[in-house]
């Protein structure tokens, strides 16, 4: 009667490790008892030891799971209109790779590693939708608006925002400007979403007028900040 003894996980060759990992994933799916050491070892070799082949195996073993997460995400329908499944999966692994390196992360359980991978995918989906929304809803469509403001070359976003705020002496107007322009909310949305701060849409219209008047009184500075000649 032969008994096969596996080598310690850390010494196991990669293809055997990959087989074990695939088996363990199937066990997880069937809700059977499992042993995470094989999967974790692939993560460790890929992330800590920087073994390229381990990284490829990791993507092979877990790519399908990422795809299932993507399909199960509440925004998947809209997200898949913006990019392909393949790109989302590829971006997820790339971003995951950079993040675990930047933060020097190691995972002690498979659940924690997959939670991190899942969080990466979730973030990428939302970032994709944000980018689409910005280009669709908040771009300047009319001819005569410069495509990209030169302002970005000498002003970072924080400076621009702080400078605009400095043109608004009233705290309430500054807050409203933030909600209107930075958050892109419309007045009625503000009343619904921030009712504790603003519960009267007419007040918002009035304050919006005041904000625009104040900004236009500083037109030269605003032009420089926003890089737009026609304000």
């Amino acid at each position, binding site marked *: 009667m032969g008994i096969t003894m596996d080598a310690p996980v850390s010494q196991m060759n990669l293809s055997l490790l990959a087989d074990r990992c695939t088996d363990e994933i199937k066990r997880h*799916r069937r809700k059977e008892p499992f042993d995470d050491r094989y999967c974790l070892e692939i993560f460790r070799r890929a992330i800590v030891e920087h073994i390229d082949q381990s990284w490829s195996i990791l993507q092979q073993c877990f790519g399908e799971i990422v795809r299932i997460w993507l399909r199960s995400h*509440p925004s998947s329908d*809209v997200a898949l*209109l913006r990019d392909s499944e393949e790109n989302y999966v590829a971006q997820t692994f790339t971003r995951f790779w950079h993040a675990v390196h930047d933060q020097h992360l190691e995972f002690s359980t498979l659940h924690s590693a997959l939670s991190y991978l*899942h969080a990466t995918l979730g973030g990428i989906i939302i970032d994709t939708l944000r980018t689409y929304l910005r280009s*669709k809803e908040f771009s300047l469509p009319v001819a005569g608006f410069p495509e990209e403001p030169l302002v970005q070359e000498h002003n970072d976003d924080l400076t621009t925002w702080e400078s605009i705020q400095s043109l608004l002496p009233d705290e309430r107007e500054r807050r409203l400007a933030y909600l209107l322009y*930075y958050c*892109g909310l419309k007045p009625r949305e503000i009343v619904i979403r921030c009712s504790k701060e603003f519960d009267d849409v007419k007040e918002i219209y009035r304050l919006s007028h005041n904000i625009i008047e104040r900004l236009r009184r500083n037109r030269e500075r605003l032009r420089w900040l926003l890089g737009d000649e026609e304000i």
Partner: protein
Amino acid sequence: MDRPHALAPSNEELMSVAYNEGTLPAEERAHLEQCSICQQRLAIYMRTNALLRAKLYRRLCPSAVDLNYYCLGVVPEERRISIASHLLDCPLCADEVAEIRRLQANFDPFPSIPDSLRTAVRRLLATLVVQQAHPVTRDITPSAGWPRQYRAEAIDLSLHISRESNEEIMLLGIITSTDSTATVGAFEGVTVDLYQAPRPLSVQSEGDQETTTPFLSTQVDDVGNILLEPIPAGDYIMIIRLSNLEVVIEGLTIDHG
């Protein structure tokens, strides 16, 4: 002085128009059509609002990937404090974080495989092939680019919009196949979903509305007709859900003009 003329709209009224949230009384609307000063006031509001939103919209928000890591508790201390502080100000990020936390709390690393993966439904983007010169139905709105003809493989789709007597807009379509073996009723019962083009997740989830909930749904009738109504002004995406194929039609802009 709020109004340059007795019949001129007030600043508040004009601002509501600039945000497409209000309508003017008939007299003021008539005045606006005639008065270049009021037209300029409105144009300034619209232009300044559009410019500021274009330049500032969420420029300083943490990326959603960072928000996800923040919710997992794996960001460095300094970054954690900075994100926490931002969340106090930004309702959009605060809503995204609430949604992320909900998803993370329900995270199952090994979920059952969705039907859509098992059946491997293909998704195809329909191509706009022609914009016809003249409408087919009564009282078509003056929006540019309607009616339209789309094609996706063997599927032809003609779409046009029509205004009803109560000013509501309806979207009408007829779907046919260039496959000579397909019968006229081949598409009967096929679901057609109309989605609003993406808004912020936080806005979409308001009122327990899931992001994937269609704005309107209908089914193709026995001769291939599609009818969706009423449709407010806005940007939409249509998905025709065939058994093994989803046809996506993007860029449906409905303008009540």
